[in-house]
């Protein structure tokens, strides 16, 4: 269980996020959606301790994150930003190895067990063949997979992804999301991600949280959340929701902006 309990975030005296709560069950994929400026990325940043929150708490498996050291948190939770930059000559395997450092004391070297986990993470992300290539020589999708492999090497219980598909083309977007789903199903890893694309959110998540103006507007399964009403209210767009018999999740067909 991963619970975000009524957190509020202020930036320069202004409230960005008000009393925001949600719960992700163990092994669930939760997507956070909302228009630009709604605060969805801010929530993820606060949860991953990149920015402070002023009230509320984030609880992982019964423990408040604030009572844990940064390293202890890093062993249980990992956050990946939209875009990450590796030094130009760093190889894939070197990058993935850094994921093991939260499990090491400052003087300890990586041992065989660590390297086994690194190789396992490379295999899970289908990067074993690329392990000695520099990150910069990879395509956008491959490099995003390398960062996910680094996150995997941390062996987190919860993986936070901030718009993991933003800078990728369509097939790479799906490649990354399919990988996320695969990892979630194989390992029971809880995933919380911020997405822009409503269809991707619908297709790849067990539940969807809608954020509007710094507050939670809705939370439920894709079927409950993806309604023409919600889209009209939150995104100011007219839409059709299509239910295709062969698919469990609704498809959103956007029509036009609300005049």
């Amino acid at each position, binding site marked *: 269980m991963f619970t975000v309990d009524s957190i509020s975030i202020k930036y320069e005296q202004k409230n960005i996020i008000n009393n925001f709560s949600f719960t992700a069950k163990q092994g669930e994929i939760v997507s956070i959606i909302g228009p630009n400026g709604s605060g969805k990325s801010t929530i993820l940043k606060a949860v991953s301790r*990149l920015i402070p929150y002023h009230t509320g708490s984030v609880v992982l498996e019964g423990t408040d994150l604030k009572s844990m050291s940064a390293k*202890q948190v890093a062993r249980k939770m990992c956050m990946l*930003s939209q875009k990450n930059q590796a030094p130009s000559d760093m190889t894939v395997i070197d990058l993935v190895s850094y994921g093991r*450092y939260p499990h090491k004391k400052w*003087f300890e070297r990586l041992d065989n067990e660590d390297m086994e986990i690194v190789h396992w993470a490379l295999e899970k992300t289908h990067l074993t063949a690329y392990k000695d290539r520099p990150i910069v020589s990879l395509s956008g999708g491959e490099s995003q997979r390398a960062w996910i492999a680094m996150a995997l090497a941390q062996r987190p219980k919860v993986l936070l992804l901030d718009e993991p598909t933003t800078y990728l083309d369509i097939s790479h977007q799906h490649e990354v999301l399919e990988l996320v789903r695969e990892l979630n199903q194989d390992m029971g890893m809880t995933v919380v991600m911020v997405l822009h694309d409503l269809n991707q959110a619908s297709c790849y998540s067990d539940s969807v949280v809608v954020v509007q103006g710094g507050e939670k507007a809705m939370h439920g399964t894709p079927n409950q959340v993806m309604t023409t009403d919600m889209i009209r209210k939150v995104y100011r767009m007219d839409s059709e929701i299509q239910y295709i018999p062969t698919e469990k999740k609704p498809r959103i067909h956007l029509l036009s902006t609300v005049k």
Partner: protein
Amino acid sequence: MINTSRSRIIVTFTLILAIVAGIIAIGVGGVYIPIPDILSTLFSSSSDTVNSTIIWDIRLPRVLLAMIIGANIAISGALLQAVMGNPLADPGLTGVTSGAAACVLVIMLAAPEYTQFIPIAAFGGGLFAASIVYALAWRRSGISPVTIILSGVAVNALCGGLIGLLTIMYSDRLPAAVQWLNGSLAAKGNNALMMVLPYAIVGWILSFFAIRKANIIRLGDQVASNLGENVNRIRILLSLLAVFLAAISVAAIGMIGFVGLVVPHMARLLVGSDYKYMMPMSMALGALVLLIADTGGRTLFSPLDIPAGILMAVIGAPYFLYLMRKKAF
């Protein structure tokens, strides 16, 4: 792609090259001493008093001092480049060198009776400059490299002004400080060496412990903090170390530019950006480069002793421009 065993060989080779260059440099100068004589004086109790005096009291301290300080400034630059995430960062650019120099100059010119406090003044001045840079660059979310460099420019201008003012106010005492201001190792003997050596050893040991943190911080603030690191604390500790290494060098021989900028850059080209190799490489290469600059300075225009800082500027600035032209930054 940079191969790690290749990097290891290059680092070892550079280290050996620096040591060999050091031995050769002991031989060259007003009195030429052949290498076999140098080795026999160094490794046995030779009775040749003229050679042993030249070697032990003049050449060896100067050679060692050049190498130690070259290594110090290069490591300092390498650390600052990691901390600020910018390959342009070096002790000169951030104002650390000129801050330290301004404080040293106050003692040298205005209070020459307190010369024993020069190392402390240098550290204080460097720290003061660095603190101003950090205070100006500090934001809620941390320290941004761009603002750090802009405030470094301002601090440099301020300290440069102070140095200018001091040289005008105390122009009668200036000759004593001119050599130092230009970064000269002339007439530096065992005293200066013994002052620098203990600090340098401490600094080097700490630098080797800093390698992993420097590597992690290179991945960016978000990734580093995601790996459970306190990014701002790493920044402050590594910066303190960089200031320390730069300040003791300024205290000993004055302002030497470009070593902290050019050497880590060359090291990166040769062994890649992994600090596991880049840090020892910067150290060996820094020692070699400053040794060449100093030995060149004292032999090329003999009997004139051109300060190493001047030679470094003459060689370093065009190299820097060449890097800019290649858009290496």
